[in-house]
């Protein structure tokens, strides 16, 4: 066997001995962005389909969490920046080749829209709410009249937001674990699934809960399919991607990935949801929390593990 020993004189902080330039802020944002994308996708989709009355939680209430998730996520992103005072440079240009530029502009559009959307339902949620100024009442009337337009914009932007969280990583071909186009659809599915879990958890209505339980089951199955595909693709690819897959197949992320993400985050909540649909009493909070936990762990593990994988030379 040919042995190889590589000794590098480089010791740059954050780069060596292994890359660790992105910390907790990025996976947290990827999670919150996915949650917001999921919530806004369902709220706008079911509004457009005219299900406001049948699915009140999905259309009217759960979306109040979306602006919160977006603001906290944006703050996490801001904390990640190391040249913070120059953050406005993001909005001086549109760079089509950079997913981060796409994401920055998407967030710029979807965050105010999410606030406007929630504001249009605020007086239904809190009947005693007083906008104080007449102009705000006029604005409320305006946004209620144009809800359909806003819903279509939110539907489109939420899909872009959900996919973008994955494409952001998959655009980096230097990190073999991320460098697969499956990551976009996978993160979108996972984001929709966390959004559906929150709606299911918040809903008081049995039919609505059952619907989102079923939606969640389909999304979990899709996610598992994508993950199996992901590993099949890696194992049939180049050495660096085989190495990336091996981090999860016996390597240092094996336990955390298969236990926290697959078993606790996908398989167990799926079993609980099936049991609940069959009529067993399962507190809905348990599968919902497991799905959210799995989604968060998935992003942390992907960001951590991706930074370890690299080209060999």
């Amino acid at each position, binding site marked *: 066997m040919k042995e190889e020993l590589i000794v590098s004189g480089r010791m740059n902080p954050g780069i060596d001995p292994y890359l660790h330039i992105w910390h907790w802020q990025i996976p947290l944002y990827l999670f919150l962005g996915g949650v917001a994308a999921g919530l806004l996708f369902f709220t706008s989709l079911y509004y457009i389909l005219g299900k406001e009355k049948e699915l009140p939680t999905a259309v009217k209430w759960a979306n109040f969490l979306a602006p919160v998730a977006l603001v906290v996520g944006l703050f996490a992103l801001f904390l990640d920046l190391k040249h913070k005072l120059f953050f406005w440079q993001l909005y001086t240009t549109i760079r089509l080749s950079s997913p981060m*530029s796409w994401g920055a502009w998407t967030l710029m559009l979807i965050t105010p829209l999410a606030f406007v959307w929630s504001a249009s339902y605020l007086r239904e949620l809190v009947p005693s709410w007083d906008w104080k100024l007449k102009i705000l009442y006029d604005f409320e009337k305006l946004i209620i009249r144009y809800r359909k337009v806003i819903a279509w914009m939110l539907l489109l932007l939420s899909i872009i937001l959900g996919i973008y969280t994955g494409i952001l990583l998959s655009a980096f071909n*230097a990190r073999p674990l991320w460098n697969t186009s499956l990551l976009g659809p996978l993160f979108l599915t996972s984001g929709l699934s966390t959004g559906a879990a929150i709606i299911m958890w918040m809903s008081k209505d049995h039919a609505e809960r059952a619907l989102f339980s079923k939606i969640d089951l389909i999304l979990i199955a899709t996610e598992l399919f994508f993950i199996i595909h992901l590993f099949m693709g890696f194992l049939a690819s180049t050495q660096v991607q085989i190495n990336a897959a091996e981090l999860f197949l016996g390597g240092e992320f094996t336990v955390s990935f298969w236990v926290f993400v697959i078993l606790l985050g996908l398989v167990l909540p799926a079993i609980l949801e099936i049991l609940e649909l069959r009529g067993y009493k399962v507190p809905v909070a348990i599968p919902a929390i497991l799905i959210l936990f799995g989604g968060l762990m998935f992003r942390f593990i992907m960001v951590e593990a991706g930074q370890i994988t690299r080209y060999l030379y």
Partner: protein
Amino acid sequence: MRYAMAIDTKKCVGCGDCVVACQTENNVPIGYCRDWVVENVAGTYPQIELEIRSERCNHCENAPCVRCCPTGASYIVEGGVVLVEPNKCIGCGACIESCPYDARYSHPDGYVDKCTFCFHRVQKGQDPACVSVCPTNCMYFGDLDNPNSDVSKVLATRKFKVLAPEAGTNPKIYYLI
């Protein structure tokens, strides 16, 4: 014009002069480096090969760092040199993640920093600091499009390789083997 560098792995002794020259010339903060030396030992005793490489930013023609930069702070100037404009850089780390050579680092002042091919010297017709100090003269710098440049002449006569060609970056640091 395409600036490039060829480094003779058969002549390099790994003294680290290029690293120190760069740190001095470019005021690189203490504890950081824009170029570095890699020692690669391959084989089993007694058939052992040692390759010593002075590595740095490859000033790729298909530069992933420039592609991923959301603000345009990473850009390519004439001669194909990849540079960073500190006042446009937000320190998001996308370019650091995108570099297969890990040639970039986050400067303590916040922006991202890396080898510039000593662009300030090259503009004056001088060689980069690392090339000019090399005691074994193992580094060649010049314009690939000019057949009479040092780098073109040595690449015409010697076998060479680039690092991670499968990354698709078209790197412009050539290692003579």
